[in-house]
């Protein structure tokens, strides 16, 4: 690392610290203006209670105190409105729940009230803080990345396994993080969905843990260290990064009221794009796009000798910026529905939700077009394009999740588990999620068309909130991205994404795409397998001279790029795909010809 890069890294770290610290710089004061409640009965009651409780116009030093106090006020207001409704009845011509305050409105009330109640340096100077966080982060990142363009072109993976950021962790440490995260998310889910299931679920999980530990000890004797395990626990920088990311996602999805200063920071951008103030999702979208762009530049620096990587990286940067970020906001500014044209069901699992369909149908010609476009992509677009080019056209050229994985996640691609066990688990889990997504959507549509909520013994609303909570947020976000430094950059794409599963089925059984192997040139060095982010043991095929057709391959092309002997090539052709992808193609065994052994 040269001096310039060190300066860049320093600036980036300063930006990261300011970004983190900005959450605690403001004070909070509830006023009648800062209360974000449009319902007049609710607003009046809340103000009244707040005044009684001494909260109104009182300054709180932290969002924690403020939120606790405000929640208390809301509870009281809820109660007193119910009491009033019971005593005096609901005012004439007003719906019961427009008068009484249901639990479901609280989340929105809290989030934006907290945001608007902030006073202090961040809310007073959002532009300044936009520069100090995003701005400095981008500048520092680029100062760090740009000198890499000066190196001699070629694969530069030196010291990846020496760095505490990228060397990965032992299986046991990884499993601990994964287990703790899953259990945490599950327990929180039960708490969040319905309190009364919390303790039964907790008991069940404890029971499973005991069974698991017994099973683990029983099997330990035969257990050999898997090939993907790291040598030691020294990947501490990776752990820190992972914990930061996991924390970010937990706050983003479930406790956004604690990150309102970040939303305030992105307000200036949101106002100039859609005219609305920034929500936590706008904050996320901005951060996501900035990261894809800056780390995309890094990707281009690293692979600048490889035009496939340059074009592909340019493509994910473009689709993220234009399709996922700008176009939806501009649509909103023009009073059209927010719509990401490249986000396809079942990855976009809310596409067939009643409110989305209703919203699109009510939005005139463009809304109908969006509805038809979304359905056409699923039933025509995916099979046809995947037949010609493999699933890579989506997963590593267009998709936002793929875009982040290929840019921010590139330093961690070697951490995917290549063991046969991992492959087995991958097939069960990803196809399980696909089935879950299809069933959930089927139930939601059934409810949409028939009005029936109860299907067999399941309530379609419950199923859909569990899907959103556990798969949409927990798996795709917390585990999917939070685990980049722990389990590699494609954890979600490999184990969880239902769309990847669907694309994979097409790719595996009806596609011209494959990775071809260059005759007998493979030396089994293992660079291809090591740097396969999907955990495919590419070498297994390459050393046999076998063409590779795997449902999980996203066609990133890095195996071909890191191969020191020019053995692998991503190709599209239907010819001979069955015979050339056979288990064994031994070369050079008979007298004068290349022959297959049966």
């Amino acid at each position, binding site marked *: 690392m040269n001096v310039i890069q060190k300066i860049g890294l320093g600036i980036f770290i300063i930006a990261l610290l300011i970004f983190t610290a900005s959450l605690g710089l403001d004070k909070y004061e509830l006023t009648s203006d800062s209360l974000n409640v449009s319902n007049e009965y609710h607003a009046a009651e809340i103000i009244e209670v707040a005044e009684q409780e001494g909260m109104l116009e009182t300054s709180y030093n932290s969002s924690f105190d403020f939120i606790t106090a405000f929640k208390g006020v809301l509870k009281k207001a809820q109660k007193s409105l119910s009491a009033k409704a019971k005593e005096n009845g609901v005012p004439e011509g007003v719906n019961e729940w427009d008068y009484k305050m249901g639990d479901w409105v609280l989340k929105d009330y809290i989030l934006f009230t907290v945001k608007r109640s902030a006073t202090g340096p961040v809310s007073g100077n959002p532009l300044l803080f936009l520069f100090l966080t995003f701005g400095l982060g981008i500048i520092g990142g680029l100062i760090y990345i740009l000198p890499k363009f000066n190196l001699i072109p070629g694969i530069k993976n030196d010291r990846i396994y020496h760095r505490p950021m990228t060397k990965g962790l032992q299986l046991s440490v990884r499993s601990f993080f994964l287990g703790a995260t899953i259990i945490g998310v599950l327990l929180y889910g039960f708490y969040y969905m319905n309190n009364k299931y919390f303790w039964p679920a907790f008991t069940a999980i404890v029971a499973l843990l005991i069974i698991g530990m017994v099973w683990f000890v029983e099997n330990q004797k035969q257990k050999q260290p898997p090939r993907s395990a790291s040598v030691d626990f020294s990947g501490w920088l990776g752990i820190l990064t992972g914990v930061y990311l996991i924390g970010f996602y937990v706050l983003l999805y479930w406790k956004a009221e604690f990150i309102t200063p970040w939303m305030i920071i992105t307000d200036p951008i949101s106002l100039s794009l859609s005219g609305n103030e920034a929500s936590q999702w706008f904050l996320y979208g901005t951060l996501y796009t900035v990261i894809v762009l800056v780390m995309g530049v890094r990707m281009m620096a690293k692979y600048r000798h490889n035009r496939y990587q340059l074009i592909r990286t340019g493509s994910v940067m473009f689709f993220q910026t234009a399709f996922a970020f700008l176009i939806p906001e501009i649509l909103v500014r023009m009073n059209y529905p927010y719509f990401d044209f490249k986000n396809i069901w079942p990855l976009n699992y809310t596409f067939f939700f009643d409110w989305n369909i209703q919203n699109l149908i009510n939005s005139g010609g463009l809304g109908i077009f969006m509805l038809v476009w979304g359905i056409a992509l699923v039933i025509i677009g995916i099979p046809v394009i995947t037949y010609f080019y493999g699933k890579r056209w989506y997963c590593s050229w267009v998709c936002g999740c793929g875009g982040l994985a290929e840019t921010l996640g590139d330093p961690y691609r070697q951490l995917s588990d290549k063991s046969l066990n991992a492959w087995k688990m991958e097939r069960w889990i990803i196809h399980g999620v696909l089935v879950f997504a299809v069933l959930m959507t089927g139930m939601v549509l059934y409810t949409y068309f028939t009005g029936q909520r109860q299907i067999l013994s399941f309530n379609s609303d419950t199923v859909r909130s569990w899907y959103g909570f556990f798969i949409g947020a927990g798996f795709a976000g917390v585990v999917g991205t939070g685990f980049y430094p722990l389990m590699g950059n494609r954890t979600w794409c490999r184990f969880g994404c239902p769309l990847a599963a669907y694309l994979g089925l097409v790719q595996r059984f009806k596609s011209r795409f494959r990775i071809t192997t*260059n005759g007998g040139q493979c030396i089994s060095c*293992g660079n291809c397998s090591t740097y396969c982010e999907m955990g495919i043991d590419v070498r297994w095929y390459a050393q046999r001279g076998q063409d590779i057709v795997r449902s999980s391959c996203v066609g990133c092309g890095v195996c071909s790029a890191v191969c*020191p002997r*020019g053995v692998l090539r991503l190709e599209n*052709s239907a010819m001979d795909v069955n015979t050339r992808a056979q288990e064994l193609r031994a070369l050079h065994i008979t007298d004068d010809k290349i022959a297959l052994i049966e």
Partner: protein
Amino acid sequence: MHIAIIGNGISGITAARFIRKLSGHRITVISAESDYFFSRTALMYIYMGHMRQVDTQPYEPWFWKKNKIDLVKDYVEKIDTNAKTLHFSKNTPLTFDKLIIACGSKPNKFGWPGQDLNSVGGLYSLQDLEAMEKGSKDLKRAVIVGGGLIGIEMAEMFHSRHIPVTFLVREKSYWNMVLPAEESEMINRHIREHGFDLRLSTELKEIVDDGSGKACAAITNTGDRIDCGYVGLTAGVSPNIAFLKDTKIETQRGILVDENLETNIPDIYAIGDCAQMRNPLPGRRPIEAVWYTGRMMGETVAYTICKQKIAYNPGIWFNSAKFLDIEYQVYGTVLANPPENHISLYWEHQDGRKSVRLVYDKDSGEILGFNLMGVRYRHEVCEKWLASKTPIEEVLMNLGLANFDPEFYDEYEAEIVAQFNQQTGKNLQLKKRRGLSAALSFLKKTVS
């Protein structure tokens, strides 16, 4: 039948795998070097941090058990050919019905003073790697002796840790006994571009002891003293057969084998780096310490033992390497000092890091070889052209079939054809561009 295999490198392991595919014989693989088969070709990547050692193991540990291949970690001290018994340094003796010796090579040492000091070593085994790792601590400079494939790997390894390297090459130009002059010069440039201190026409004379039994400097035949903390010896390898000297197995430089890879003792075979062909195949050397030939020998010996006797036939020569950032592939005959009837069509990219050389016969016009730097060509297509003695014109017109570079890479075949036209006054047109379908159709077509 019990088949014992000494050595768990690519030759021994390929033999074991194919014996298992072809039979239910009991198989024991013996190695003193490592618990499991790993790719020696990837040693450098472990040091450079591209991979961990586990990543260089092509098969997970369960593979050996599942395929009933017994692994023994021990050193074979003695082979009793009469009693068909192996004697180990630790374990109890093991009897065999058939024995395959695949014990590989060791780095050459030419009697340099100081060659056995600490911090002097080659790069062949896991133990060499460990020595390098140990020697790299606080290392200020390394000197590497020998201008071959392992030398440049070692230089790249030290370079990856920002340890300055002085690279002593005996020849006038890097690897010029194998590479033609232009390619050799390209690598000279590339080595210097990376900042190595490349000293051509320079030999090692002596390694200086720092007084504690550790190397502290290298002295060259030009009288220069280079202070350094590590000396890499990479002047080739030779068969590692010292442990056979009291047996009846006939050896010269390597273990002598017939065309079935059998030694003078029945039921004992030798394959890989340690085998020396009694009657080398035309155009081939008696000992070829090459990864690919080791693998082919492993397949051949498995076939001979399990099915019917089959003569070792490696087919058309091919090889590959990577010199820092420049990949190298060769198919067929491309000689550094070609005879008068070998004509070269040499094209080099303006960036000086890519080239294509086609060698053909002056009289018959048939294609003889391909030498690629920084450009990837299809093995099977080149091999088919070579095997069917295709005329150079036909090869050139279809040259795109051979291109194996990734998608969106520039294709240089038209430039190569144009250069041929310019040199010969002919007017060929490139008919085929890069693409899998066309290449496969060509491969399926029977040659008339």
